[in-house]
């Protein structure tokens, strides 16, 4: 593949990335948008081409199925696609790398057909018919409701939704929704689509059973009682965490929530911006407005960007309330048994990780976090279970072919 050069390069084509690309191009900049997925839309608009189309412009170059695996030089990305490797040069870079689910290990969580809640939805959106299949949705956060509704509308037998947060926290959150009419409408619509599906609060999975595949899941309530539910699939995720690996490689400052940015969504690295879930979990509307601000700022129209600050403030307030309502309970730290695998790439059990005193030691002694996912899955678990923050990121940030690395 030939090398390319743009004013603005956007990494990630979810709502935030689409908004960035649209606004930067509107300002007359040459723009390229790239994403690991074959189509734009990110996760929330996976398979929803109509939603993405509202933000797509003909003058934005699209590089799909592309992974950034290194920063070979100043203002340059090394990118691998199915066809080969290329360099993409930029004057402004916008990281709209989104978020992933947080997974917590419990006995049986590695069985086939135990997936993320969003993971199961993604598989359904990818063409997998699940009609008539028995599904349990568990974990935490508003995503569980959205996934259950999506599956139910497609004829899936959603047995129940297990939310680890207590009802009291959700009720407090519900009261605050009154200040956000659009969100309240979403909540009501969701509820209507879920009639008949039990939504059980203070409830979480403690084990999944099956030989070669999932057969049932055992759930615990806050009062200590348990129940076992037979099912074909378990969709389980404990909220979302920001994808910050590329930002870390670029030297951007990262806080506990995500990539740190100023009011124009610019990181401490000049010319590098971040928008959307990568800067902290906030949902669709916040991602869009952050993307627009970053796009205008990178396009040289800070006046237009500033006009959107008030909207962003309102969405951020909502995000903060959301985080509080769905905070993970301490009991979940006891989910993994000593023999439960924490690192699924290298099959490292909890007892071996717990015997180490920090991430570095765990990596060196057990290979935890050293496999193909580079700690993207076990990192979020270990952060919650043991309080270890992941360490420095080194290239390649994604497994790359030897030919790509040798250039």
């Amino acid at each position, binding site marked *: 593949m030939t090398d390319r050069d743009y004013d603005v390069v956007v990494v990630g084509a979810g709502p935030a990335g689409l908004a960035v690309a649209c606004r930067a191009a509107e300002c007359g900049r040459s723009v390229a948008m790239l994403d690991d997925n074959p189509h734009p839309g990110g*996760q929330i608009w996976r398979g929803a081409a109509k939603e993405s189309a509202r933000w797509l412009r003909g003058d934005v170059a699209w590089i799909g199925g592309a992974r950034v695996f290194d920063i070979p030089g100043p203002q340059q990305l090394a990118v691998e696609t199915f066809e080969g490797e290329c360099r993409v040069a930029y004057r402004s870079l916008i990281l709209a790398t989104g978020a992933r689910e947080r997974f917590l290990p419990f006995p049986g969580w*590695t069985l086939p057909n135990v997936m993320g809640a969003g993971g199961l939805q993604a598989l359904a959106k990818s*063409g997998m018919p699940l009609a008539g299949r028995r599904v349990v949705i568990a974990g935490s956060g508003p995503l569980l409701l959205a996934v259950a509704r999506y599956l139910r509308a497609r004829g899936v037998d959603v047995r129940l939704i297990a939310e680890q947060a207590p009802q009291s926290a959700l009720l407090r959150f519900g009261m605050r929704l009154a200040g956000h009419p659009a969100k309240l409408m979403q909540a009501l619509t969701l509820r209507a689509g879920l009639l008949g599906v039990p939504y059980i609060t203070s409830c979480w999975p403690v084990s999944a059973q099956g030989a070669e595949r999932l057969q049932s899941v055992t759930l615990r309530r806050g009062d200590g009682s348990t129940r076992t539910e037979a099912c074909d699939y378990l969709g389980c995720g404990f909220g979302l965490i920001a994808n910050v690996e590329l930002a870390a490689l670029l030297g951007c400052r990262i806080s506990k929530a995500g990539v740190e940015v100023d009011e124009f969504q610019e990181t401490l690295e000049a010319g590098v911006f971040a928008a959307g879930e990568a800067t902290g979990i906030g949902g669709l509307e916040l991602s869009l407005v952050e993307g627009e601000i970053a796009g205008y700022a990178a396009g040289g129209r800070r006046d237009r960007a500033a006009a959107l600050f008030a909207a962003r403030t309102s969405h951020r307030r909502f995000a903060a309330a959301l985080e509080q309502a769905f905070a993970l309970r301490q009991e979940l730290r006891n989910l993994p048994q000593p023999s439960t695998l924490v690192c699924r790439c290298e099959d490292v059990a909890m007892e071996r990780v717990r015997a180490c005193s920090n991430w570095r030691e765990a990596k060196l002694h057990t290979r935890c976090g050293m496999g193909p996912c580079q700690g993207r899955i076990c990192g979020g678990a270990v952060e919650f279970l043991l309080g270890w923050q992941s360490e420095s990121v080194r290239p390649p940030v994604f497994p790359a072919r030897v030919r790509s690395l040798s250039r």
Partner: protein
Amino acid sequence: MPDSVTLSVNGAPITVPAGAMVSAAIAIAGVDRYRRSVTGEPRGPLCGMGICFECRVTIDGRAHCRSCQVVCQPGMEVRTDD
């Protein structure tokens, strides 16, 4: 564009809706075990979005392809780790 695509999973032909991902085609073919882990455990998709690498399969002879990120093409040959 035709509305379906025929490919093979472990040698057996399977027809899926056009635009479906290889991960979905494997599930439609009735296969739960996409790969075996380093200690031999059966594994299938987890994240569905290209992050976890649990759904790795061999596509047209190329090993370690994340099946959730590859769109099915006519005649594609997919092998799980059996």
